[in-house]
């Protein structure tokens, strides 16, 4: 019989963005909350002050803040005819391993999805007809609309301290912002970050081509800022140590910098660190969850009973927890039945490598989300009639810091990888070489799914999650268009050498590091036959289980997912507090 902790109102698995935002909401509403986090407590002053943070080998090359594959990984195959094998080394699974989760080390691109991204099925059919969908593609509406989420996007941006310029304020389009965005009720809480030579070159070229460039909304505070929770952030110093690093300035939008200092003052909140949840447990009638089981640091088994169970352990781990807990019917690829693990998607990346001559890009100056972007070819922002695909990409340049070790292969094509020729080319490319990044939509497919691996297990003897995924025809077609547009912009920027890049020219691989946005597998929706969660991210099967994260997304947009993850968490928190607590049962009656 495992050790049992005292029962609380809610247990939260994983204390990243979703977990900390939910914990803040629930504790403020008076609930007792325990969060269980696999990683340790970390904080700015101890773990990444300036004297420690500026260290590429430790934080970037060795990924010291991220969860090692030795603790958990996935197995991978492109299609069901193959045997899946474990991803044994660093790959696109860039998971957190600390209080704050991946929200501590992320790059900070803080987007809203567009209205189309949340209703891709009905809007595509309305504009183009069902013939626009390629074979086997899974496209379905989320059950929430952009207008439903708008107030929650607004609140997330204010809590996070996002720096940007509105492009659509209550329907009024504003040049300088993203004119393609959904209508906003308010400006960003902070003005945009400063621009760099690279972003200026991109902005000028895009503008000259007739496109509509804007600065990407950034999870780096452009000024000192106090958020609605009373937590203070410092100004970004453009140090260039952002993605994979903690922020020594309290400037990056992270759970640690924005939520947790307020959360830790609440006497009704406790976090258990270094503790790994393996599954939910159930009441005797099997209809509701009783709590969760976890292993503490000494591998002792405990149960944390709770009235509400929240999985917010990151996209992959959420799906794994549902499967290990046996919540919901697992997706069976052979029959097409079931939903848990179904509808996995990713991020479709194409673009161009560009090399200037005699430039001083000074790329060591930067911030994680310091970027200029155009949305003219994203989502449904252009007419897809006759093109045979849906979606597109945000196209941008990234002024994110220099990476001497990470960028050793950023040299013109044909350059040797070592020797004096490499040294010369790399020295030149350090100030002249960069890339245009098409961060594209990604739609799921009946052949893209997650399930439990039949052979490989983690260190605790539990099956690893297995991913079956390859690029589908729709995404290959959209990537091609985005590559062409990137080439056009690169040439207009005056780059001497412009080479197209396209991840979909090859089979998908976890070791193709173009993106780490793994999406879906426990999607939200309007129909229990095609979704795991209802529109409030509540399990259709077990009404006191809620699942928060990109696992909820039936598709990925041409944007980074964190802003939408935050907004959906706040949307669900409101539903729990204002509706669920008073009448515990399914929030959506079918």
């Amino acid at each position, binding site marked *: 019989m495992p050790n049992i902790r005292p029962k609380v109102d809610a247990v939260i698995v994983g204390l990243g963005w979703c977990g900390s935002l939910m914990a803040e909401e629930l504790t403020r509403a008076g609930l007792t909350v325990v969060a269980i986090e696999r990683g340790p407590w970390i904080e700015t002053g101890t773990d990444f002050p300036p004297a420690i943070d500026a260290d590429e080998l430790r934080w970037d090359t060795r990924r010291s803040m991220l969860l090692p594959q030795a603790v958990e990984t996935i197995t*991978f195959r492109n299609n069901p005819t193959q045997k899946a094998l474990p991803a044994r080394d660093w790959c696109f699974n860039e998971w957190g391993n600390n209080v704050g989760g991946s929200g501590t080390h992320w790059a900070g691109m803080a987007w809203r999805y567009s209205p189309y991204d949340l209703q891709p099925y009905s809007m595509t059919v309305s504009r183009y007809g069902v013939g626009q969908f390629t074979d086997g593609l899974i496209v379905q509406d989320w059950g929430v609309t952009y207008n439903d989420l708008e107030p929650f996007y607004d609140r997330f941006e204010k809590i996070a301290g996002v720096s940007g310029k509105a492009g659509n304020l209550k329907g009024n389009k504003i040049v300088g912002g993203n004119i393609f965005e959904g209508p906003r009720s308010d400006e960003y809480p902070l003005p945009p970050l400063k621009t760099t030579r690279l972003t200026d070159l991109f902005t000028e070229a895009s503008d000259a081509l007739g496109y509509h460039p804007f600065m990407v909304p950034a999870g780096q505070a452009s000024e000192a800022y106090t958020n609605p929770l009373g937590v203070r952030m410092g100004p970004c110093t453009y140090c260039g140590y952002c993605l994979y690093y903690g922020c020594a300035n309290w400037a990056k939008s992270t759970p640690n910098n924005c939520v947790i200092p307020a959360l830790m003052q609440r006497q009704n909140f406790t976090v258990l660190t270094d503790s790994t949840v393996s599954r939910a447990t159930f009441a005797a009638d099997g209809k509701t969850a009783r709590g969760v089981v976890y292993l503490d640091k000494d591998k002792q088994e405990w149960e944390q009973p709770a009235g509400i169970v929240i999985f917010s352990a990151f996209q992959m781990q959420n799906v794994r927890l549902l499967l290990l807990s046996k919540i919901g019917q697992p997706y069976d690829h052979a029959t097409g039945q079931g939903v848990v693990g179904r509808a996995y998607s990713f991020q479709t990346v194409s673009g161009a490598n560009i090399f200037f001559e005699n430039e001083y890009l000074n790329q060591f100056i930067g911030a994680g989300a310091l970027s200029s972007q155009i949305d003219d070819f994203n989502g449904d922002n252009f007419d897809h009639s006759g093109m045979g695909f849906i979606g597109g990409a945000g196209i941008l340049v990234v002024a994110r810091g220099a990476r001497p070790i990470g960028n050793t292969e950023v040299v013109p094509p044909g350059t040797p990888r070592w020797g004096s020729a490499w040294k010369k080319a790399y020295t030149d490319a350090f100030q002249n070489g960069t890339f245009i990044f098409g961060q594209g939509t990604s739609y799921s497919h009946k052949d893209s799914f997650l399930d439990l691996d039949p052979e490989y297990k983690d260190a605790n003897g539990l099956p690893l999650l297995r991913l079956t995924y390859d690029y589908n025809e729709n995404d290959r077609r959209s990537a091609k268009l985005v590559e062409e547009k990137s080439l056009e912009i690169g040439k207009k920027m005056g780059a001497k050498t412009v080479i197209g890049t396209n991840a979909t020219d090859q089979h998908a691989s976890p070791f193709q590091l173009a993106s780490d946005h793994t999406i879906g597998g426990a999607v939200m929706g309007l129909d229990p036959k095609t979704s795991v969660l209802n529109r409030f991210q509540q399990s259709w099967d077990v009404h006191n289980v809620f699942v928060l994260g990109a696992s909820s997304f039936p598709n990925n947009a041409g944007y980074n997912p964190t802003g939408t993850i935050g907004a959906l968490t706040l949307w669900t928190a409101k539903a729990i507090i204002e509706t669920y607590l008073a009448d515990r049962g399914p929030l959506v009656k079918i």
Partner: protein
Amino acid sequence: MKRRELLASVVATAFAPGLARAETISGSMPWVPGQAAVPPLAASTPTATLFFSPAEAETVGAIADRLIPEDGLSVGGREAGCVHFIDRQLIGPYGQAASQYRLGRFIKGTPEQGLQSSLTPADRYRIGLTALNDYCQTKHSLAFSGLSTQTQDEILTGLERKDINLATIDGSEFFEQILQNVREGFLSDPIYGGNKNLVSWKMLGFPGAYYDYRDVIDQKGKKLDFPPVSLFDTSI
């Protein structure tokens, strides 16, 4: 005690488990003053190697001098400290592939499934350096370090392109391991034993461990003058 040796004596991995960390936290931020998660530095005795035998160190040095040759841009890889850097990496968790998933059967898969090798980085050097020298003795009657630079380059190119096979290890797997580590040794902060005198950062014009560019960010497209700095002043 010199400051560098003091820091080097702290044993630590990624998050310094030696630090006192709370595990059931409630009611306030659990900050403990006076702690810092210093970088994981192996004990530092600059002239002795801790992992490599003298013969292995000689071979690694010769390889490093071809991957990063001495030329007008910088000293060679050996003088830059690559052997010392790699030696220190291999006796630590990195050398043991501590972060990697090493359970279950090792089955060769598709290229998309990534390397499915049971070898650790330390294994690759132990096996690969011997295999390389055996190959050189067999073909040229000399160890790798005794060959002309042209022959050395031909061999390294052959390993890289999978034209040369070694008897006891995949030549390309060994080559990629050492190329990556030589690059790291050349380009990482000098606290790890390489990039001596910040030689690569001077070559590139990379300022290193600066943390605030607000006063120069508006000087766009201009050559900036930032003499590179390390996390710790190793001249002390």
